């Protein structure tokens, strides 16, 4: 469960890095089309792996509730992290 949570957090960070504004704030350079593609594919793939890793165990329906709850928390964490980064800059 913890692994799934962490994978989801990484996935959302990768997806946010696929956006020009957030990438620039984090790495202080522009995002190339290839990098955008890499972050986007990596993000979605990690997100799917996190989902499958949680649902493959016992009680998949219950784990689905956990996954959606993690998603809410992680989106907020990434949003606040990115905002803090941009403000720091």
């Amino acid at each position, binding site marked *: 469960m913890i692994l799934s949570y962490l994978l989801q957090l990484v996935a959302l960070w990768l997806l946010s890095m696929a956006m020009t504004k957030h990438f620039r704030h984090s790495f202080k350079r522009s995002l190339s089309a290839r990098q955008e593609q890499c972050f986007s594919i990596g993000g979605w793939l990690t997100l799917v792996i996190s989902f499958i890793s949680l649902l493959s165990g016992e009680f998949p329906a*219950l784990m689905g509730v956990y996954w959606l709850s993690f998603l809410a928390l992680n989106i907020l964490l990434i949003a606040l992290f990115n905002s803090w980064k941009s403000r720091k800059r």
Partner: protein
Amino acid sequence: MKPDFRKTMIWLHTYSGLVLGWLLLAIFVTGTLSYFNHEISQWMKPELGSKPVSSMAINQSLQRLNTDASGAINWRINLATSRNNHLKLSWTMANKPKNIRHSQTLDSQSFQPIEVRDTQGGNFFRTFHYTLQLRDYGGRYFAGIAAMMMLVGIFSGIFTHRRFFRDFFTVRLNNVLKTLTDLHAVVGIITIPFCFILSVSALFIYISMYMPWSMDHHYDKGSRELNALVSTSLPALIPANIAAKPITDFTVILAQVQQQWPEQNAIKRISYELPFDANGRIVVSRHKSMSLSNKTQVLAFSSVDGHALTGAESERTARMLRRIFYGLHEALFASAGLRWLLFFMGSASCLLIASGMVMWLNKRLAKVKQRHLGHYLVERLNIAGIIGLILAIAGYFYANRLLDFNLAQRADAEISVFLLTWLAALTYSFIRPAQRAWLELLLITAIAYLLLPFVDFILNPQWLLQAWQYNNWVYLGVDLALLTTGSISLIFYCWLRGRNN
């Protein structure tokens, strides 16, 4: 002229939120607190103490029932959990014209009866969030309308805040109103699944009240008859009218139960039906921690020799679907970690609603030179609806601790204090300048919450000391939550005062 779809959606989002925002906030705040219903109840019944429940609880309870409830037509043992620490026995004596029901709360170690204060505890928040204390006056219909409006708010909000999907993961921190707008959008997005499931399941739970026409058309007794047809339960118990002694050593049955339900502390309740009849039955109910459905799983045994009896049939798919929605709404399946996550999403939803109402007012006040009555009303209702509600909850907790233990209808008196505190906050918000009212009510709320654990300690130091001694993190956790709420209120007070200066 073709109407602008997005503008229509913005209008719908703005005014559906405004009209029912305060009602939705009250429903969401009390509903969110309901995730910790049992924990709040335990704190509000400090006489229960903090000692861990003895493993002999079932057999000791059965022996007590055998002595105190001899000749009863049923016995029931509600076992204590770490969440409620409440071991309760009840039984019914046959009587004409009406059977008489008795109940007793036992100390979890000595198994002697104890007196517990009369309170609704956390259950008040649960019932309030769907009845609004107006059960006989259409409260559940108002809650249903609010759930429908929440759905409208969710869908229209997706179109209203579409910019956020483009600038995903962005919260602008350089301007208060922009921060509030972005926070409103981000919590709106993260709570979409949560709010959607809660609103839809709320409508599902009372679907027979909101749309009774089809059932009334097809069945003479409407939804009652339909429910009886689709629900499954244990076979009807036919008395043998032969006297028998019930089992009072539960060990044999416990072994059979553990084979079927291997998880720890699986049993929630034990009921004996006709315990002194040769056909008597023991019904063991399982905790709902293993299934999304709110249907209680049961096992049945003979009360004479303990052999397993026929159980209930499994439910039909449609019925099961409704039960899953019901279960998702109540979240009785949730472990402590998941309950905190749901509490977080509930709190985020409250922030979503409250920020929406504050934004509505501030955006309009920034544009107008002269305020009109609508602005005045929204401004005052925002104060009473947001901080007034938080203060009223503190009032409810104070009433629990300060009202006389033997006061008649004590539980109702606690609820009256909650409602009167809220009314006082509403009145206060109308008689004071808005900024002053915000500041003063925030300060009163902060002081009220910060002092409450100390008041609790002064009233009876043993409650807290025992909780500390036995690592009762439910009791200590509620105290910490009160201190946290007080601290957050104080931080808001300081921030708002600094901003006004």
